[in-house]
């Protein structure tokens, strides 16, 4: 009998721990994913876009060096800051419990988002061979 209150306290503590663990590993990552997923995918595109633009600007300076192409390159270099936004959001999501695997999956989804379009296109068009 004298241990009852300890047992109850232990149960309460265990329950709180379970709830906290569930919050940390399931609820929060899920909520964070839901909130930031689209923003994350958008930043994957934006970062990739500025990196592509930067490479194009660099190649343009190599192939057609002019005052304008140099200006474009400098602008593209500054544009790379967009990738910093991507990095920050990625780290924030990891800190809040979203796994790197899931983030990679979102990145892949963003890159290949349009692959389903092809199936829809084939489904909806009557091809004549």
């Amino acid at each position, binding site marked *: 009998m004298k241990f009852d209150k300890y047992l109850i306290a232990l149960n309460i503590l265990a329950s709180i721990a379970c709830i906290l663990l569930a919050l940390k590993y399931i609820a929060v990552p899920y909520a964070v994913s839901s909130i930031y997923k689209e923003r994350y995918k958008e930043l994957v595109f934006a970062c990739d876009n500025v990196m592509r633009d930067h*490479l194009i600007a660099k190649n343009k300076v190599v192939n057609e060096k002019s005052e304008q192409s140099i200006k474009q390159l400098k602008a593209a270099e500054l544009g790379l800051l967009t990738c910093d936004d991507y990095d920050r959001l990625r780290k924030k999501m990891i800190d809040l419990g979203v796994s790197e695997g899931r983030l990679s999956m979102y990145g892949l989804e963003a890159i290949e988002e349009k*692959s389903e379009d092809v199936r829809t296109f084939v489904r909806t068009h009557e*091809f004549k061979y």
Partner: protein
Amino acid sequence: MNLNTKTLLLSFFIIHCSNLAVAATAEEKIVKEQIKAAGFVPAADLYRNPDESLSDLGKVFFESNKGLSLNGNISCRTCHQDKFGSADGIPNAAAIGGGDGATKVGPERLMNGAKQLPRNTLAFWGRGAKGFDVFFWDGRVDFSSPKKLTQFGSKTPSNDALVTAVHLPVVEVREMLDEDDFVRKHKVESVEKSKAVYQAIANNLKSVESKASQDLANRLNKKPQNLEYVDYARAIASFIRSEFRLKETKLERVMRGSEGFSETELKGARIFYGKGACVTCHSGPHFSDFSFYTVPFPQLGFGKNGFGVDYGRYNATFNTKDLYKFRTAPLYNVEKTAPYGHSGSVNTLNEAIVAHYDPLSLVSVDKLNKFDRYELAKRLGYADSTSRVGYLTPEEVSQVVRFLKTLSFNQ
């Protein structure tokens, strides 16, 4: 009406008809001169096959799903089917992972969960024939000038462009190769690393197609253990040359004088070689100048650069002048190779022609998402003035299509 009146009317009718015939003949003569001047060559004169004796063995390797794919079930034949005009009949190629490469082909393969590639499968007609030395949408195998362009740099595996081109799909991850530990280890883009992968594919072919490999070794006077992938590539290239060789077309018969154009075909030819100026780029023996232009076809699928972006030729040269450019499509049997464009985004030849002068009519701009709209605007900005033809009416487009059908032949 008395007899004299009837005779008079009949005479007028005959004179009118003969005038029409003379006009049509004169017009056809002028058009034929233009066709000849644009580089028309009879099909038989274009055939070349230095390794013809290997062609029958090439067929075995071309169709070897387990041999050609190191760790999957797909062969060249999977995506180059007779029933789809030597391609696969879908917008973006459906590659590895779609099931048995012998039975699951075309749309069925796509729906079966195959990994998608970013571009439309190219047809094989006339590949490797005389004057056909630029391969793939972005010309990443380009032997049209002494300075050969390939991803192998100076260590090109063969001096034959088609044999070199046959080296590419088998080592393309997602295409005929799935990513496993061996592939990950050798994925670094170096010629030395790729040699190990090619040798592994050659060894795989030796084990899966042992009889044909033995025959290949005999014909090349080699020991079977010394067979390399380039030996198999020569056989496959030989089969492609022979199987997909150009054959006599209606146009050829018209040029020879044994047949005439129909009225609609002649009108189409007049537009193709005249006001449509299609001949500016679609010239030469293969109806392609093998140069690169930006025609703003709608983009379908995720694109070579991801996110629905495909920079085309730029991916091969890294020259900004090549952004969004693709090789001028050769036109033999073009009616059989739908869908069209680098991402197969248009379904009919009529639409493919419209893409050259009224591309926005093929896109519902209000339904595009913001990134697609942004990309479309960019692509339009790069569109070549060379590739823009004058406005054609739907009837004129159909006439050009009828002319293009004179470039068809049966396998």
